[in-house]
């Protein structure tokens, strides 16, 4: 994807992906939130799903003219003003390393940092929730220190437990339930992120923020 030009691609016949140009920022994400609000009012759109500086549209049926949808998205993006969402701050106590952080050594090997430096850099920021995805209640977070970025694993792990704190590329997050993952798990926490009987069912929404508090570091 060019840094100057927005990306547009198809995911089969009933979903399209729009990717914002430029570096990943909260400002761009606020425009993605605005674009989602706009696109979900379009007749052919089943659901507008923000990702990390991108937006997937799930469609009720294949668009008759793909170019028309692409053009409409580009125009709406150009017109999108940042949407300021006021959210809550949730603090999560994290045990870093040990059995709950099996890939800490891989992050250390990739970044060249020691355990304490990784923990310090990971727990310093206030992480805004950019989007939900992956599995029920899971939050994609912005704001990770790029110096601890670590590529996704060559082969995904078949199951990591709920509460796993992990790094995938330049992103970090907390799994809300056990399941497969390609990310590097560096710690664990304990929090219920999703209840299907609640309205809304997810604990956190875009605009909320997470702070990781160091509860313990296991060497």
């Amino acid at each position: 994807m060019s840094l100057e030009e927005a990306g547009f691609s198809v995911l089969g016949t009933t979903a399209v992906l729009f990717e914002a140009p430029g570096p990943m920022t909260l400002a761009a994400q606020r425009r993605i939130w605005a674009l989602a609000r706009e696109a979900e009012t379009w007749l052919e759109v089943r659901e507008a799903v923000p990702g990390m500086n991108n937006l997937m549209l799930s469609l009720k049926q294949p668009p008759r003219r793909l170019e028309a949808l692409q053009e409409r998205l580009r125009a709406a993006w150009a017109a999108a003003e940042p949407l300021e969402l006021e959210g809550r701050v949730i603090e999560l106590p994290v045990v870093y390393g040990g059995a709950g952080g099996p890939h800490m050594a891989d992050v250390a090997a990739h970044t060249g940092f020691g355990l304490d430096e990784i923990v310090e850099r990971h727990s310093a920021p206030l992480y805004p929730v950019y989007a939900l995805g992956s599995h029920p209640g899971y939050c994609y977070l912005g704001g990770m220190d790029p110096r601890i970025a670590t590529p996704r694993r060559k082969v995904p792990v078949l199951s990591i437990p709920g509460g796993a704190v992990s790094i995938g590329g330049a992103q970090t997050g907390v799994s809300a339930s056990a399941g497969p993952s390609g990310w590097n798990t560096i710690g664990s926490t304990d929090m219920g992120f999703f209840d299907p009987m609640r309205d809304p069912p997810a604990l956190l929404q875009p605009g909320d923020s997470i702070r990781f508090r160091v509860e313990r570091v296991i060497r």
Partner: protein
Amino acid sequence: MIEILSSSALATVQDLGREGGLRWGVGTSGAMDPLALAAGNLLLGNEESAAAIEIPVFPFRVRFAEDCAFAVAGADCAATLDTRPLMPWSTYEARAGQVLSLGVPQGGAWRAARAYLCLAGGVDVPVVLNSRSTQLRGAFGGLDGRALRKGDTLRAGTPGRATRATGIGLVPPALVLPLQRDGCAAMRVLPAAEYEGYTAASREAFWSTPWKVTPQSDRYGYRLAGVALEPIAAMEMRSHGIVPGVIQVPPGGQPIVQMRDAQPSGGYPKLGTVIEADLWRLGQAPIGSQVRFIRATWDEAVAALAEVRAWLDESGRLLDLHQGLRQAS
């Protein structure tokens, strides 16, 4: 009411899937072979989207605690009602106390992996977030959000005598809408955003060589084995929405096709997407079998979806016609 007699796990309650939860990270779930589920329901006069039991491990047995009409669609698994052999893709009436047994799927031109047991009125479990499908990752939907176990009981929406004629069947879509390459089940694919990021040799191999369905294939995804697919340069993506059918390629080079329990978002590069109209073919591909991918154009993919819809409409029309003739006679 039916009682599950088999301890073989992995059978789940599924309907056509859950919509509207992607923004909370809730994937679609739903039948791996939506055509079989919809056709089984049509046979019983149910809504196409009624819930049924998806069975991927055999043998599988249930006892009917009351009279109930049912249909078995999908894999041809030598079903018997007590000792009576049954035809696949057909409706029958069970009497209270009778046992339905599904055996290992039959070979032949098209050996499928999953059978669907549809009940009159659909399997009656609570609707959670717009669907009765089991959401295994979130542990909700279906029966208590989990796979079925021996001793579980499920209610049919409208048990009792069949409202539809019994003993009639449909010709399965694998025969009506066949798609194979060199003797392998084939699926049409639309290239996705990172397609051009793979070497020409890898792209060529993707279309021209068979892909083995590995044992690490399930409702979440089909992990395929074949030629290692190599990117021109390493790609690290931002997480974005994905749908069932998306073919991700982790850095190991072996593709994973996202299936119905797939995460609704991901970050591995995407080579293509198995088109919606053909995803049932992959959902029915047994572990150990080989599949092939066929490059489709946008128009072909859209036409294929219309063809699937037309098959279901025609099936419904024929069943209505048969019903009308039976009532008139």
